[in-house]
C-alpha cells in the first residue's frame, strides 16, 4: 500500500476496520518513516488530550455556585523536537546498543527489573514491555 497518512490517526483512535488495520500494520512493519509519523502523531494527540479541563465561569450552569479553580497543571511537555533524539538515546540504552564501556550495567538492571515486573500483573505488564531486550 502507499503511505497510510490519515489512517495513522484513525489507527490511534481505534477507528479502522480490521482490513485497514491489517494493511496499515503491514506497511508499518516495512516503513520507518511511517513509524516515525505514527509516533509523532501519537505525541501530538497526547499533548491535546493533556490539556486541562477548565471550569466554566460561575453563572453559566443553572443553580451552580462558583466552582473552586482547579489547581495549576503539571509540567508535561514542550517536546516533539527532543522526541527523536530521546527515542534514539533511550532505545540505544535499553536495547543494549549504547557504545562504550558501562561501569554500571544498565542492561543487566533492565533485564532484572523486567523479569520481576513480568511475574505480577499491573499496568506495566498490561501495557507490555517493549524496551527490555
Amino acid at each position, binding site marked *: 500500500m502507499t503511505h497510510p497518512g490519515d489512517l495513522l490517526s484513525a489507527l490511534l483512535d481505534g477507528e479502522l476496520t480490521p482490513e485497514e488495520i491489517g494493511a496499515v500494520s503491514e506497511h508499518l512493519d516495512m516503513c520507518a518513516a511511517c513509524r516515525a509519523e505514527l509516533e509523532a502523531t501519537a505525541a501530538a494527540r497526547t499533548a491535546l488530550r493533556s*490539556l486541562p479541563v477548565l471550569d466554566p465561569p460561575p453563572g453559566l450552569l443553572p443553580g451552580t455556585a462558583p466552582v473552586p479553580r482547579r489547581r495549576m497543571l503539571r509540567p508535561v511537555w514542550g517536546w516533539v523536537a527532543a522526541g527523536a533524539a530521546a527515542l534514539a538515546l533511550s532505545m540505544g540504552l535499553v536495547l543494549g546498543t549504547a557504545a562504550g564501556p558501562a561501569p554500571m550495567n544498565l542492561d543487566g538492571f533492565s533485564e532484572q527489573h523486567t523479569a520481576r515486573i513480568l511475574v505480577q500483573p499491573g499496568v506495566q505488564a498490561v501495557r507490555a514491555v517493549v524496551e527490555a531486550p
Partner: protein
Amino acid sequence: MTRRRLLAALTAAVVLLGIPVTATAEDGVAEMLEHASEAEFHGSGVVMCSWEGDSAAATYEITRADGMSMIQGPGGALMSHDGISAMQSGSDWYGTEIEQWAAWSVSDRYSLGETVETTRLGRPAVIVTVLEDGRPRVRLILDVESTVPLSTEILDGDGGVYCMAALFTFDPGTPDMPGGMPEMEEMATVHPMAEGTALPDAIGGYRRADVYDAGAGSVQAFYTDGVFSFSVFEARRSDRPVEFDHAAEFDSGGSRYRRIVTPTNMWVHWSAPDRSYVLVGDLPPDHLTTVLEALPRPGDRNVFVRLWRRIFG
C-alpha cells in the same frame, strides 16, 4: 472462577443495560488487572511516555497464549513464562530467572470508578477508570469479550496523560505460540538478599516487595503498589552509568537528578554521598517526586567523612 464471574457480571451489566456501573468491591482493581493479564490474544500497538521535555514512543507486537507472553519491540523479542524471561539478541536467547518473589497485592488507595460502554477497534468495549484516593489515575479501554485492555492511559497527578499504550490490531482467541521457551544461550538467576539494603520498607504508598542481588556489589530493591512498580539499584558511589552523561537534568525537591525517558519507563540517576543510584519504573511523575524525596538525596560526600575514610579506611 469467581473473579471471572464478577468481572463478567460487571461488564455484562454495562453492556446490556447501557448504564454506568460503579464497582464497589474493594479488590476490584486487583481482579481486573489479574484478569486482563490472563487473556489470550495477538495484537500490535504503540506505546509512549512523555515527561516535561522528554518523550519516547515505540510500536510493538504482543502474543499471549498458554500462560506465555511474547513481545516484539523495535530491538528484538522478549518471551516470558512462569518467572523466567528470555530476551533475544541476534539469534541467541538470554534468560533471566527470578528465584522468588513476594505475593502481589494492590494498594487500597486504588478503586474502580465509573464504567462506560464504548466501541474500540470495532468491538464492544468499556472505559474503566482506576481511581487513586478518588481521583482518576489510569484509564483503560477493555475489550468486553476478552477483557484485554485495548488502550491504557496513565494520568499524572493533575489529570494530564503521562503515558499511553494502544493496540491498533487485536485478534482474540488462541494464537499460535512456540511450543515452549526457546533454547537459552545463557541463564542468569536473580537471587534474593535477606538483608541487602538500608532503603526504606515503604515509600509514598509503595512497599518494598523484594531485594535482589544485582551483581558487582549492586543491590536491587523492588517496590510496587500493585499497579505501578519501580526498582532502585544501589551501587558503589564510584559506579557510574555512562549512558546518563548527556541525559537531561531535572530538579525534584530542591535536588538535581538526571533522567532518560523510554517508551514505557522512566530512568533516573543520582549519586548520594555514599552510594550511586539508578531508579527505573513506570510510576507517574507525581509519584516519582514523592519517592525521590524519601530516598537518599544527591550530594557530595562530606569532607570530614572523606578524611575519616582516608585515615581509617
